[in-house]
């Protein structure tokens, strides 16, 4: 590591002042990305501004929707009962990042600012329609998360700007979400593909029979039985990771689903559309063709998992269930 001065502001105001004063300074929160980059000499800043001691950035507020400070750790998100129940996709993403040691210090703000195409909280935040609170020289501004990610490790932050936190809209009883990380190992791994879905539904038939449907072993049976109960996808948001230079919304696939009764044919055609929205490429983790095949499977599963969470809310702990 090159020599740097390490600053430890205690408040957001002090952090912002330091950033304005020290041109080219780098913020560091949990350090699990930044310290690695320093060690690998991929960055060489003269000044590091630590956000670890800024208590103002560690809030979790569920009074109106959900507001999270950028300094909230993945461990806190993964263990937070309300987030697991109402913003399940985000808890799903937070609990599969790195290892326990990493999650204990790595922050939500760090994960989105590092902006890896594979970031596990990125797809959940896209599907949950997050807004990013940013503090700049002219004061605070809010940016939709979809406008925040620009490319690999590139975000819409000017020099000296700081992410204060994220805001998620309120959710209704009849909405649910899920994130599925598709990887070869269960820890210390980046996804080959990641898919998050948020849905809100209306049910023409019986909710009880929908719950029964979800007990079925074979996915086509589940879908057929949900179709029989006229489960309508009133609103849908889908996000996909590692299929483009940045995590993306599958907006055309969403449009295909919106207002429709779930059915095998609907999922089939939705899968084609989702694939057409990807710009997947080969990497050492897997081929582009495999990624696209998995997009087909995982978009469907993420939606079913989100529906499952609406129908059987007490089972949110059962996150490893196939869909």
């Amino acid at each position, binding site marked *: 590591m090159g020599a740097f001065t390490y600053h430890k502001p205690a408040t957001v105001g002090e952090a912002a002042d330091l950033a304005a004063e020290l041109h080219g300074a780098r913020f560091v929160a949990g350090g699990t990305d930044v*310290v690695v980059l320093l060690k690998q000499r991929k960055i060489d800043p003269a000044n590091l501004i630590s956000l670890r001691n800024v208590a103002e950035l560690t809030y979790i507020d569920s009074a109106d929707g959900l507001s999270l400070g950028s300094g909230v750790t993945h461990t806190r998100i993964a263990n937070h009962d309300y987030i697991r129940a109402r913003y399940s996709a985000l808890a799903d993403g937070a609990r599969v990042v790195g290892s326990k040691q990493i999650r204990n210090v790595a922050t939500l703000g760090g994960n989105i600012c590092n902006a890896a195409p594979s970031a596990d909280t990125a797809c959940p935040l896209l599907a949950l329609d997050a807004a990013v609170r940013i503090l700049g020289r002219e004061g605070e501004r809010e940016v939709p998360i979809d406008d925040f990610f620009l490319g690999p490790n590139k975000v819409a932050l000017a020099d000296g700007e700081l992410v204060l936190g994220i805001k998620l809209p309120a959710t209704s009883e009849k909405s649910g979400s899920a994130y599925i990380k598709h990887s070869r190992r269960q820890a210390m791994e980046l996804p080959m593909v990641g898919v998050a879905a948020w849905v809100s539904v209306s049910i023409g038939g019986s909710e009880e029979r929908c719950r029964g449907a979800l007990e079925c072993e074979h996915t086509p049976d589940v879908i057929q039985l949900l179709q029989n109960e006229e489960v309508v996808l009133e609103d849908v948001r889908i996000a996909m990771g590692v299929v483009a230079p940045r995590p993306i919304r599958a907006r055309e696939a969403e449009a295909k689903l919106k207002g429709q009764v779930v059915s095998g044919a609907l999922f089939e055609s939705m899968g084609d559309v989702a694939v057409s929205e990807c710009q997947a490429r080969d990497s050492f983790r897997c081929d582009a063709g495999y990624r696209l095949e998995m997009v087909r499977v995982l978009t469907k599963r993420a939606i079913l998992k989100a529906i499952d969470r609406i129908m059987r809310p007490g089972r949110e702990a059962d996150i490893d269930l196939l869909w």
Partner: protein
Amino acid sequence: MKQEIQFVLNGEQVFADVDPQWTLLYLLRNVFGYTGAKKGCGVGECGACTVIVDGEATNSCLYPVLEVEGRHVTTIEGVAAPDGTLHPIQQAFIENNGVQCGYCTAGMIMSAKALLDQKPDPTEEEIRTAIAGNICRCTGYVQIVESIQMAAARMKQ
């Protein structure tokens, strides 16, 4: 330029003059001579450097040394009782062949201790999740998981 920090190391208040570029791991090994925590990968992938900071298992190789100020750090050297009686987790690792070459052991035990301190009665899955960031290339993990289960059972008594 060196800066002085003050923190609690294995229950004892200590001071050190540190370079901002150091990590907690460097401080432990090169200043305090506590070589239980190992440098494996140096980038937070292997867990051999795991120590407990303020109750949480942490990769000391990624922990900026100036952040140690005012915190409580526990290393493998502080796990046994002052009279040398091994901690139940250490004892269980020995009895259950949870140790082979030993390189991962200090980190593995610190991850296990952080888990059992917070959750005295973990499921097997919770144990596996807690040590998923600690790589062992010898044991195949089964004896390690069994060692932690044995320790949990004894600690409850």
